[in-house]
């Protein structure tokens, strides 16, 4: 159960190894990587900048992680969220869920992403290749995704 908010890129192998190396009680590891897409609403992006609320960000990510551990039998979890300016193709967020069982790992990773998207205080601002820019609007589908977990 660890979270990180960082400017630096993340590496999947290193992040998974940090959770699993030397352990033989894990049978299933699910990772989710969210990346910057090159096009948004018909506009070609030059970059995306992520702002966050230091302090609260870590607290929210840790709270979401604890919710997942209370709900599924998880051996380990990890959340890494980048901030600052990212280019199309770069990773924004990494979530890892490790369990003895694959369904728990899948469900927990999906749950972590749904909760993170609707509660962790990050905001994305896009800059188009034409210089136009704007804050990304929150999506109703994210609230709908959250609803499927109940409570």
């Amino acid at each position, binding site marked *: 159960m660890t979270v990180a908010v960082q400017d630096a890129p993340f590496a999947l192998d290193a992040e998974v190894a940090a959770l699993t190396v030397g352990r033989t009680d894990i049978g299933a590891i699910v990772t989710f990587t969210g990346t910057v897409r090159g096009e948004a609403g018909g506009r070609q992006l030059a970059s995306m900048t*992520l702002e966050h609320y230091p302090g609260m960000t870590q607290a929210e990510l840790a709270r979401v992680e604890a919710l997942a551990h209370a709900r599924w039998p998880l051996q380990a979890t990890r959340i890494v969220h980048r901030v600052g300016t990212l280019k199309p193709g770069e990773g924004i967020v990494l979530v890892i869920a490790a369990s003895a069982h694959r369904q728990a790992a899948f469900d927990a990773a999906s749950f972590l992403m749904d909760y993170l998207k*609707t509660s962790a*205080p990050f905001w994305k601002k896009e800059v188009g290749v034409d210089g136009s820019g704007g804050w990304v609007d929150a999506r109703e589908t994210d609230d709908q995704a959250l609803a499927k977990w109940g409570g």
Partner: protein
Amino acid sequence: MSEVRTITVLYFAWVRERIGRGREVIALPMSVTTVAELVAWLRARGPEYEAAFAKPDIVRAALDQSHVKPSTPLGSAREIAFFPPVTGG
């Protein structure tokens, strides 16, 4: 002489841009007791606040770094933040 309290107010994303600053410490009358009342009080401070809170239902708040509703009492909180719906992940 009415009593006041000081509270740190943080703004993020387009709320920050509209108000023109990310952080301020304000002296708040004790009569302002909830998040919604604080929003109303801030809106009266000037057009930049009016613009930021033009649609108060959209702006979210966190009290001492926990999400709260407009009806939440400010209590003894030392920090309140206002921001748009989050868009991370």
